[in-house]
């Protein structure tokens, strides 16, 4: 995912993205230019601006030009999806709990009005209950906005609940590819890897 965003240089291969019917070559582009295409990453480890308020964090999400146009609608949507954020809009992001921070990270990414959303390990450090909540929110986003979501997640069961397609990557190689939830869950490799069977 870091390769897609241009943060880590590519060692081999190609990355292209089709946005609005136009194909873009992403290799060699700066992260900020890739974001400008509508491809947004929700980074691992949250990476909020701890000494800014919740609201400021959200507004920063809407920095890019296309996002500014939709800022009111997106903000309203974020507060509706995560009512907790509306309550704490003046609180410093660094002073919130892990789950709250994860929600803010997600909300902030939504503020960029993404076409393709990349989510890196949304469940790290969260309680199982929160993981369910977050995954549900992601599903809602996906369905409501017609977003393309690419998610990397260790928590297989939660992830496949909302996935249209799945890839199992072992040691950096794609070991299995499935197109539906059933296909994914009834698979030897998965069983071996995740359930120790």
């Amino acid at each position, binding site marked *: 995912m870091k390769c897609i965003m241009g943060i880590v240089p590519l060692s081999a291969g190609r990355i292209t993205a089709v946005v609005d019917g136009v194909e873009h070559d992403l290799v060699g582009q700066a992260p900020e230019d890739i974001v400008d295409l509508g491809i947004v990453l929700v980074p691992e480890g949250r990476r909020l601006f701890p000494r*800014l308020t919740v609201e*400021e964090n959200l507004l920063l999400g809407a920095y890019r030009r296309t996002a500014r146009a939709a800022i009111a609608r997106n903000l309203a949507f974020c507060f509706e999806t995560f009512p907790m954020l509306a309550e704490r809009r003046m609180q410093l992001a660094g002073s919130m709990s892990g789950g709250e921070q994860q929600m803010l990270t997600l909300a902030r990414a939504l503020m960029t009005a993404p076409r393709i959303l990349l989510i890196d390990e949304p469940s790290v450090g969260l309680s199982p209950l929160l993981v369910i909540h977050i995954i549900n929110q992601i599903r809602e986003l996906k369905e409501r906005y017609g977003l393309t979501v690419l998610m990397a997640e260790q928590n297989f069961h939660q992830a496949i609940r909302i996935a249209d397609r799945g890839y199992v990557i072992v040691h950096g190689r794609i070991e299995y590819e499935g197109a539906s939830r059933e296909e994914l869950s009834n698979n030897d490799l998965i069983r071996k890897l995740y359930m120790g069977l």
Partner: protein
Amino acid sequence: MEFPTALVLNAIIAGLLLGGFYAAVSVGISISFGMLDVVNIAHPAFIILGSYVAYIVNERMGLDPIAVSVVLSPLFFVLGLLLYRIYYLCFEKRGQESLRGLAFFFGILFITEVALVLIFGVDYRMVQTAYSETTWRLGPVDFPMRLVVPFLVSVTMVVGVQLFLTHTFFGRAVLAVAQDQLALRLMGVNPTRVKGLAFALSIATAGVAGAFLIVIQPVQPALGREYIGLVFAVCVLGGMGSIWGTLLGAFVLGIAESFTSTFFGPSWAPAVSFGLLLAALAFKPSGLLGR
């Protein structure tokens, strides 16, 4: 020790007026040092440069120095852009900004100082303005225009900077840039560009503050050194990265200074101011309004 009302009132007003000026000289540091993590110790040198620019235009064309400085602040902005470019290429890009950046700005401080000496000589320079000798009196309280005009422009400028930083997309990016550059890039913001523009803004404020300085007191090229301690004191006392804090810190130091001067002996004023700073650093390192 007695505290007659008239003296106390005057001390407060004088302290506020002085604080307004201190805020103007420190707001740039609050941006560059407080928000961008660029330890620009040469900031006072650019203030002095601003003084001389205001001085020349005033002398040649008789224009008001403060108005001149506001009009010419884009020049300082461009200077700031250039300086940041060098700083970025030499230090930030290589990831070794802290100490070497500091030494770099020390060098810039000397170079600016010498350039001014070579061009203008070493004599003290002053300007005369339409309001330099006017004082309003409100009951027992004096409002010398020599300090009131810089105060008003300064507070306008500082509040303007604050509103700009909190109410624009660019401003919020400035606030965020020192906290997490990568995250900022993931929002589609180019942090280097943000830092460059913000640094340029800080130098532009130095240009304007320079005009205040020469309206208030005579200026010579090496005067900037006297302000190094002060600007950092205001910035840290108020709270890193907070413009309101800078304004508050400036007022606190201004009032502390004028009270010490009025009631205890002016000689102790620096010890009181910097003692306050030490105490703040020791007991509340985030400063008065630091986040």
